[in-house]
Every structure is written in structure tokens, then in C-alpha cells.
């Protein structure tokens, strides 16, 4: 697609999901994480033949199931009832994570608490001392998928940046994130540093002020 995408206001979750969907090449095998990334499925073009993987043992996952289509034995990783598309397949958990770890999954899209300037991901533990930890498949996905994309708000509710020089929360995986989609901008994590690729209602200078890390401007001529 044509880059950069510049808009005059921040993007909502659905617009951001549409942007992610447009960046996923036809024919890709993709895992969408729980939460905001799930919305990406709504914007994929069936003609593109993108196959969705769910780590609880299925390729060819269809949309969320409703009404009579709900089957308690057909769920996604978030334990939400889903449907199967023609050409779907089922397999056990060790196979499901072998295909991930073995580099067969092209993309995963995950939510995040923090992403570092070098692509470290923190998305499984809030760091709160009384929190019950739960990691699920996040570490395996972030490590195993060929490309890990993150969707998150740029700032916490308290206004702190979530794209940071180095993560202060417990890590999910080291150096795994290649691109970060946020409501204010899309960033590429490159060998040269963090590059601003698209901007939404936020100028390059504003982004530099919000984030305490060096940025490269790749948004335009």
C-alpha cells in the first residue's frame, strides 16, 4: 500500500485494525492475539486467502460464532466461540506450537504494555506485586512468528509512553517486534532505530516530545 498514511486525527481501534489488515500480504498465515488484534480479522479481504491460526489447534479459523453456530468445542485462544472456514484443519497443541516455533507462521499481531526501541516486548505481566501471572502463548508467538506486529495505544491512561528506550515491565520476548501500530503513529523497529512511518493527528515534533527516544522520520519526502 501507499505510504505514508497521514491523518489529521488519532485513529480509533477499527481504523487501526484496517491499517494492519492492509499490511498483511495475501496468502499469509497469521495469528491474531487476544483483544484489539482480534479486530484485524474484520478487515481482511477473503479474496486474499489469508489463513488465521489459533494456538489452541486450528488453521482456517472463521469469524466469531453467534446464536445457533456457537459450539463449545470450537473456540479461539480467547475462549470465544468461532467458526471454521472451508479448508480448515485441527491439530494438537504440540503441533500448533511447533508450526509457530518452527517459523511457519508469517505474522502474529499482539497487544502490548510496553515495546522497547530495540523491539523487546512486554505484554504478559503488569508488574503489580499482587497480580496473578498468566503468560499463555504470548512468549511462543512473539518468539516464533516470522514477524511480530504490535497494536497498542501510544500512551497509558496516565499519559506515560508505552514505546520506551527499554522495558521496565517483565519481558515477553527480546528483540521480536518489527512494527508498532498505535493510535498516534505507526513505527518500524529498524536496525538504525525507531522510524516513524505513519502519523495520525500528531506531528513528528509532537511525537518526539511525547517519547523519550530518538526517532527517524520516514513519513515522507
Amino acid at each position, binding site marked *: 500500500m501507499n505510504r505514508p498514511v497521514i491523518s489529521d486525527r488519532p485513529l480509533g481501534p477499527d481504523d487501526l485494525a484496517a491499517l494492519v489488515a492492509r499490511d498483511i500480504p495475501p496468502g499469509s498465515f497469521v495469528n491474531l492475539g487476544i483483544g484489539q488484534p482480534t479486530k484485524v480479522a474484520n478487515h481482511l479481504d477473503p479474496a486474499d486467502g489469508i489463513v488465521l491460526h489459533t494456538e489452541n489447534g486450528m488453521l482456517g479459523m472463521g469469524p466469531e460464532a453467534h446464536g445457533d453456530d456457537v*459450539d463449545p468445542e470450537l*473456540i479461539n485462544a480467547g475462549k470465544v466461540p468461532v467458526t471454521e472456514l472451508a479448508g480448515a484443519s*485441527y*491439530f494438537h497443541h*504440540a503441533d500448533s506450537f511447533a508450526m509457530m516455533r518452527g517459523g511457519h507462521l508469517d505474522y502474529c499481531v499482539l497487544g502490548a504494555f510496553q515495546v522497547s526501541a530495540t523491539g523487546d516486548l512486554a505484554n504478559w505481566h503488569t508488574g503489580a506485586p499482587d497480580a496473578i501471572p498468566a503468560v499463555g*502463548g504470548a512468549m511462543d508467538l512473539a518468539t516464533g512468528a516470522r514477524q511480530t506486529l504490535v497494536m497498542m495505544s501510544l500512551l497509558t491512561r496516565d499519559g506515560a509512553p508505552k514505546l520506551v528506550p527499554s522495558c521496565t515491565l517483565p519481558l515477553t520476548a527480546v528483540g521480536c517486534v518489527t512494527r508498532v501500530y498505535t493510535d498516534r503513529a505507526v513505527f518500524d523497529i529498524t536496525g538504525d532505530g525507531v522510524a516513524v512511518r505513519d502519523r495520525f493527528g500528531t506531528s513528528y515534533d509532537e511525537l518526539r516530545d511525547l517519547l523519550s527516544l530518538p526517532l527517524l522520520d520516514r513519513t515522507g519526502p
Partner: protein
Amino acid sequence: MVDVVDTAVEAVAGIADGATVMIGGFGTAGQPVDLIEAVIAGGVRDLTVVNNNAGNGDRGLAALIREGRVRKIICSFPRQHDSHCFDEEYRAGRIELELVAQGNLAERIRAGGAGIGGFFTPTGVGTALAEGKEVRRIDGRDHVLEHPIRADVALISAFAADPAGNLVFRKTARNFGPVMATAAVTTVVQVRELRPLGGIDPEHVVTPGIYVDRVVCVPQPPLPEEEGR
């Protein structure tokens, strides 16, 4: 040799206090709820349980935890919106948690069943879950050493079995069942349908009967396709 038994209570007989028990299922999909409830009725305690989660709602694994039968749980995702039974036991310090990344959990069970003494995996490198574990650089990438998990008993749920113990599963209820079946001294299976010998096409068998010790058929509510939807 496979024992086809009549009741869930017979199927789970002989589990000792302090046993390690693998329990299939991802959330409630594929969870052998009737076998777990028979375990609760049998009074066994001090169990180490291996499952992806730590119970949902108030039945099955959640009830086993609520009843104080589980000393330790090895799982990847205990915290869920309906994990209140586990949450209460954990916050009260009455249950030990070993948290394992989900793919490492599946592969540790697979290794246990396949006679593998351990494996190096990139998953978890540089995280809290790799602390204290051996890290080795292989082909330019760091890998962490993970050890197999074996169990005294595996309790799983499948769609159908034949008297040879061959199993077929249904949709995403398959999840951990096939690997857990390989990794326990005694594998106990609850099925929705018991078919005659030859009633499962050998090409369709997911878990061969060599891994299965006891089978019990427990009728379940009709599935969507059975209701003619």
C-alpha cells in the same frame, strides 16, 4: 490392553494421594469434567495437576481446586475472568503455581511421552521464565533448556474410542489430549461415543490405542450438528 469401564468412578480408581495428574482441555473445551468429578468424589488429595489453565467457573478442574485437592498446578494461563476458584486458593497461599509458556508446556509434555530428556527452545529466553535455566547459543540464537513432564495419570476427553483404545477428537477440543495421552503411566479417557472394533477408520485415528489404558463412555448434551442446525 484397554479396559472399557462403565463408570467414571471405575475409570479413575487407583489414583494415589500426591500423584501428578495431567488434565486435558483448553478452558472448558476438551476438559474431562466427568472424570475430574469422579476424582473429587474419590477423595484423593495433594495432587500436582498439569493443565493449560487453572479452572473455569465452578465445575471440573475449578471444583478440584476449590476442594483443596491440588497442592501444585503447572499451567500457562491461570488468570481468567472465571478463574475465581484458583484465584482464591492462590491468594490464600494454598496452591503452588509453576507458570510455563504454553508452547513449552505442550512440548515438555510431548518430550515426556516421547522419551526425550530435555530440549532447547528459543521461547522464554531473556524473560523471568528462563531464570536459573541453562541457556545455549545454537545457530547464532539463544535457546533455553526445558525438561520433560511426565505424570502418573492423564485424564483426557475425546470424541470417540473403539475397544482397541484408538481415539478421534473433535474440533478445538483436541488441544492437549493427544500429547497428554502419551506422557502418563495410566491414561484415562472419557468419550462421547464408543464404537465397535473397526468403527474408526485407521487413517482417521489421532491417538493410537497403545497410549490408552481406560475408556469410559459418558453421554453428553447434543452437539450443534446433532440438533440438525
